[in-house]
């Protein structure tokens, strides 16, 4: 109704101009917010970063020294998280999109994944503490933290992969089956390669979620200041280090430096994968 009244008062062409402006402004504001946050992190953090900061151990609980063990910890737990969640997530997505019909089990899996993705990360942390750290006796370790992060990354990878597999033109699979290919040959040689860009993007989203997470590892990974070697070593990934430096008032400068390193790490991962995915997609689609 309000719409009708608006049309009566404002001529359509002017209304169009106003709406164009509003949409343009929304876009610009979003961009500005992003630039502001990243810009501020870099403004505060980049001056702290140097080779020593990147490649040495922290001293005095992190008040001085570098963050080398934290960088290693972050990469380590994220690697484990992806190693575990990617095969399960992609496998489940293939099952949902290609094998399962529409039945109760499928709806249940989908509902489960959606619910999983909306659970607050601190609850994952608590679960990780009870299950991995205590019940499975993995202790505060890279393994406990990585597995907890895997649980969190799983629904993200599943959802993105399923959408990507579902969007693959059904005619590809028909063409393959009509040539006498089996279902598995069709899935492995046609469907997965065609869905690979989307699947990769999903894995990267899951990875980004895992590498940036502090709450889920708060109770599972320990907080050791040394470089973890074994899977059962405790560790302190970047977000956790950042959290401790800031909340315990150890060094705000080093907290900003840690934040900047984390942002740069995520940027490197996403930009590299996007470039590779783009190249693959162009080659596949001949453009």
């Amino acid at each position: 109704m309000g719409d009708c009244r608006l049309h009566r008062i404002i001529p359509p062409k002017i209304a169009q101009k106003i709406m164009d402006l509003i949409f343009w402004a929304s876009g610009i504001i979003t961009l500005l917010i992003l630039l502001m946050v990243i810009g501020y992190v870099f403004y505060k953090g980049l001056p702290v970063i140097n080779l020593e900061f990147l490649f040495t151990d922290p001293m005095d609980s992190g008040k001085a020294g570098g963050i080398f063990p934290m960088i290693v910890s972050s990469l380590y737990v994220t690697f484990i998280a992806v190693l575990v969640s990617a095969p399960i997530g992609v496998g489940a997505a293939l099952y949902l999109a290609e094998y399962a019909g529409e039945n109760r089990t499928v709806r249940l899996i989908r509902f489960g994944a959606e619910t999983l993705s909306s659970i607050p990360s601190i609850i994952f942390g608590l679960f990780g503490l009870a299950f991995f750290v205590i019940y499975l006796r993995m202790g505060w370790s890279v393994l406990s933290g990585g597995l907890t992060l895997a649980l969190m990354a799983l629904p993200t990878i599943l959802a993105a992969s399923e959408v990507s597999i579902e969007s693959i033109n059904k005619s590809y699979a028909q063409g393959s089956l009509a040539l006498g290919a089996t279902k598995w040959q069709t899935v492995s040689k046609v469907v997965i390669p065609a869905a690979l860009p989307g699947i990769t993007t999903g894995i990267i989203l899951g990875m980004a979620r895992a590498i940036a997470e502090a709450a889920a590892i708060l109770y599972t990974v320990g907080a050791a200041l040394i470089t973890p070697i074994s899977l059962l070593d405790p560790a302190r990934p970047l977000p956790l280090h950042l959290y401790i430096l800031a909340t315990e008032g150890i060094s705000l400068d080093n907290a900003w430096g840690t934040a900047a390193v984390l942002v740069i790490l995520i940027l490197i991962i996403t930009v590299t994968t996007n470039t590779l995915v783009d190249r693959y997609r162009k080659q596949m689609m001949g453009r």
Partner: protein
Amino acid sequence: MEYIIEAENLNVYFDELHILKGVSLKIPKNTVTALIGPSGCGKSTFIRTLNRMNDLISTFRMDGTVLLDGEDIYNPKVDVVDLRKRVGMVFQKPNPFPKSIFDNVAYGLRVHGINDKDILEHKVEEALKGAALWDEVENILDKSAMGLSGGQQQRLCIARTIAVEPEVILMDEPCSALDPISTTKIEDLIHKLKKDYTIIIVTHNMQQATRVSKYAAFFLHGEIVENGRTEQIFLEPCDQRTEDYITGRFG
């Protein structure tokens, strides 16, 4: 006359829908048979029973028999993968895989266990020549098939099909998404292919049916009204409904 396919009293249902009603048709070997009729009359469903593509639809049910070289293809002992190798299919919309031109044609061969590079190269070249596409793609075999024009893509799909050396090629309105020049090329190709293959083509284009086929069957509401030599169907149809359809009174 030698028949390669004999369908006997076929009934096909999707859920409660009775799509084919007691269809019987014999397809002579190494000729082109055209299936004509209005949309929704069961032509596509019929050819999809011949390579068991309907099996992919969960609500599909059928009774009756389909013999390929005298063997019942719905016999539980029949391997569907094997059957589809013998009965190839070209779809309405060109559907090359998002792979290179070479990999598209080699796909069926690789799926059936041929991995020798020399054999693959030889067979891919043969198939592309057979589909009258070789001259156009000879130097871009490693480029994506998605970059080809619609007509080229459809000929690539034909090349992909003949690469596995089927006995029968089913074509489901293969030209409906193509321009007239590409259509002519495909029709010329069909003439060339009928020496080695039995072709069954579904078409909405009456002229196309007369141009490419020797035999024709007219489908209406899930039944075959009339079938026989194409010129007889078009020039002196026995049934009033056939005459009405081909003279454009409905459909």
